[in-house]
């Protein structure tokens, strides 16, 4: 098929193959190596910087050499489909979820969760505004459906990703629930949730029901002897989320 292409496109494919994998792709006939090396370096360095900027912790946690290898493999194996620069890290995440087999051993079990957690900040900081219609900013959260900030991300990880540092790598799994959102000042905020609050918010999101209904369901799920105390406690949590701007009103 390549043979049917015009000569300029055959050359382009040989050129980009070299950029993707300068170790294994054949050098271009008639092109000085030191000139080609300029492209090999700048193209990789640009990609490497765009990826690394989003993952300051992950890149340090697995160490320079492994991080470099992962990025070289990303350059070599992944076909990026978005022209938007801020989506480069998201595409790296997609690659991490489905890497070439020989990379599996480079990737500790927690790395994908950690990278996802680091990427979420970029995502939430730049998600476009949507203005949900017909919201009562001061509606009663018990009898109406709470509406959450459109920027909110409800997250569930197998590791305590928010506690990982280069010196403190996770030794074991620890179910972790986080809520990330952008407040009215456009600051990205992280809230650690307990499993019950996480479940409450999931119910409200998925079932589209009023606060008290969700809490009644939750009390049943927990088989709590005093559902009323769950409801009272849960309503204070919803009020709290309202005050922080996670809940923006009711429907």
């Amino acid at each position, binding site marked *: 098929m390549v043979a049917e292409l015009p000569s300029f496109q055959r050359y382009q494919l040989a050129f980009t193959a070299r950029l993707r994998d300068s170790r294994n792709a054949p050098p271009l006939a008639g092109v*000085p190596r030191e000139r*080609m090396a300029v492209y090999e370096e700048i193209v990789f360095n640009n990609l490497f910087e765009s990826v690394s900027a989003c993952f300051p912790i992950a890149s340090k946690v697995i160490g320079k050499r492994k991080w470099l290898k992962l990025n070289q493999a990303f350059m070599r194996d992944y*076909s990026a*489909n978005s*022209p*938007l620069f801020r989506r480069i890290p998201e595409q790296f995440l997609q690659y991490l979820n489905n890497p070439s087999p020989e990379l599996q051993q480079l990737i500790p079990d927690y790395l994908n969760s950690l990278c996802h957690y680091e990427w979420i900040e970029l995502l939430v900081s*730049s998600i476009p505004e949507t203005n949900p219609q017909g919201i009562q900013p001061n509606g009663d959260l018990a009898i109406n459906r709470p509406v959450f900030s459109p920027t909110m991300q409800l997250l569930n990880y197998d590791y305590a990703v928010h506690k990982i540092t280069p010196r403190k790598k996770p030794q074991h799994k620890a179910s972790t629930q986080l809520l990330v959102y952008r407040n009215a000042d456009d600051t990205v905020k992280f809230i650690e949730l307990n499993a019950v609050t996480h479940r409450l918010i999931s119910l409200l999101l998925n079932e589209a029901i009023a606060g008290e209904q969700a809490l009644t369901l939750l009390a049943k799920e927990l088989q709590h002897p005093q559902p009323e105390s769950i409801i009272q406690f849960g309503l204070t949590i919803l009020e709290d989320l309202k005050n922080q701007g996670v809940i923006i009103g009711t429907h």
Partner: protein
Amino acid sequence: MAIKSQLHGVGLGLKRELIPQIQSLYGQQQLANISFLEIAPENWINVGGKYAKQLDWFVERYPIVCHGLCLSLGGISPLNVDFLQQVKTFLHQYSIPVYTEHLSYCTDGFKGEQGYLYDLLPIPFTEEAVHYVAQRIRQTQDILGQRIGVENASAYVAAPVSELSELDFINAVIAEADCLLHLDINNIYVNSVNFGFDPHQFLRGIPGERIIYTHMAGHYQQTPSLLVDTHGENVIDPVWALLEDAYQLFGTFPTLLERDNNIPPLNVLMHEINKIADYQHKAERSFTAARQSAKTLG
């Protein structure tokens, strides 16, 4: 070419690092020579939060032009029409009259996808490439409903398959696509060193009447015969001389300073902005003087 009249004077590429400085010094005399700003749509399409507010702030105060990086006019994968539609919406949403792109490519169609490599790669200068690129520019202009400008790109490797000179390639593409020229003065110089030609001679071959605006920038000298277009250094004297020559040849046109790396404080960058403005005033004065003496003689 009505578009040109909407731009004038000197522009600056809007980098994130510069945003707070421009906002805090806005309205002060020291920024008086910044007449327009340039953004890459790839950085601003569909942003929300503080980025959307920054964009609103600048759109209210400055004429904005869009200079794209990832359209991949010379790329082997199909033109990304979805992206172009996003660009179109973006231009309309912010009333941005100008969109330019590079005569280069950044995709390789790897694994049947676009295969973005996020950099400006050199198109081989062949007859087939002329028709291919011109057709994609026409397709772009049809979708956008407006002419675009294409920029002469810097390069480090000459393709052995090339059949044309860079100048012949650019001229052929522009004529066939009926588009505008976004002239990058620094790129002419970079390529003149990297490929050994006379940049002033090159200037004399370009279609000056199609220039929409020009770029000025600094580069990195890797070796005496290899310059890398980093936009990370000050503009050097031979590039200033080329700008002066271009103004004399074609009259002045809007000119924008690009500084993407190693960015000094805004008050330092203003030296180069002000210098461009000085060159423009000087060229306009000599142009007017020449016209008056022509009248006197007549």
